[in-house]
């Protein structure tokens, strides 16, 4: 009945139109986590290798209960219950980006606390660190050697070998020396060319037998 008036039906139309747009905007899935670093910036950050903490430094932090540090165990709860670094919180990798954790991390950042991530080995905490770094958390560090080294390896600076075992990206072997010692003359195509090289001389000898037989 009211819609018979042209103006009124038009107003109703405009109102529904606006309501649709507003509802659409509200329900639009805004990503709550955005990358703060571009891929190129991430590469730069990785190459700096600044966000790694030495196990011997962590010993001091735990001993003096340094309040500037928060320690987070990213392993699963079972591993955490079986043993963890004193004072560490347990946030498994798969729940790191949960809303309440992100909120807590933001709080750490405003309090300018440094967060130390550790897993069983360095690799386990490396991925989580990279993701958190890329979404803008600058205050995270990775424990070198992880929990395994922290509980087994020598932690006294004076007991350590020249290249401690937690520097996993250092070559543990003299690659070139071993390859040479084991008889590879050119390691680059050890698989393709060296093998025939060993075989070829004996074939030549066979050939010479045939030649001689003629």
């Amino acid at each position: 009945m009211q819609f018979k008036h042209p103006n009124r039906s038009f107003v109703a139309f405009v109102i529904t139109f606006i309501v649709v747009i507003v509802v659409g905007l509200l329900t639009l899935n805004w990503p709550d986590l955005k990358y703060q670093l571009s891929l190129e910036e991430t590469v730069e950050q990785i190459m700096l290798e600044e966000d790694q903490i030495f196990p011997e430094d962590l010993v001091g932090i735990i001993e003096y209960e340094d309040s500037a540090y928060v320690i987070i165990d990213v392993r699963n709860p079972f591993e955490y219950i079986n043993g963890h670094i004193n004072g560490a919180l347990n946030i498994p990798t798969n729940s790191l980006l949960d809303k309440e954790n992100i909120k807590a991390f933001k709080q750490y950042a405003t309090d300018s606390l440094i967060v130390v991530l550790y897993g069983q080995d360095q690799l386990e905490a490396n991925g989580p660190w990279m993701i958190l770094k890329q979404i803008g958390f600058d205050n995270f560090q990775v424990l070198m050697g992880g929990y395994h080294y922290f509980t087994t390896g020598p932690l006294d600076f004076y007991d350590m070998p020249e290249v401690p075992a937690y520097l996993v990206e250092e070559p543990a072997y003299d690659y070139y020396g071993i390859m040479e010692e084991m008889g590879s003359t050119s390691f680059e195509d050890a698989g393709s060319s060296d093998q025939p090289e060993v075989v070829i001389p004996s074939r030549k000898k066979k050939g010479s037998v045939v030649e001689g037989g003629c």
Partner: protein
Amino acid sequence: MNKAYYILAAFLIILGVGLLVLPERDRPDEASPRELLGDLRNPSRFISTDKVAEMLIDKDPTLVLVDVRDMYDNLDFSLPGAHSIPLEEILVYDWVDSLAYEKSKVVLFSNSDIKAEQAWLLLKRENHNNIHVMKGGLNCWFETIIQPTAPPETAANDEIDRYEFRKGASIYFTGGSAPIETEAGAEPVVVRRKNKTQVVEGGC
């Protein structure tokens, strides 16, 4: 009535201008942080050194090895046929398109697996598939393939079989000790043959 149309048109124009002002998403095809975290939980990105050795020996054409260490390290030693693409240049080249075909298996490696995994995460954010990480890196390669340690005699058959494979692979990749040993063993045979030829020569 007319007035109302003007209002509606003005409203639409304002919305349109809003669309112009919206910031451009520079890489709309990037994987989100949550997707990356999900990928991290999937251990299938790792490939064992045994598998890599097997593929190299079989001369598997789908295998693309990528050494992400510095050029300097690469000069010293690298896996046979590996491409050298240092971590800082992993995004510079369009190498993934040129090397990685649909069915190829790109395997990243470094001295351990930390740098390789960092490279993997970067490529994963760019939404590349078929990228893998060699578990343990070159240190593990030397530990398991080049210098394998014998399992105890009580070990399971699988383990002994694996050790046998690794011993063979070690010989294959070093081109070294064992073939020389067999050559030494074959030497008397060679000497005999020489004698034979001499006899035949003498007979001619």
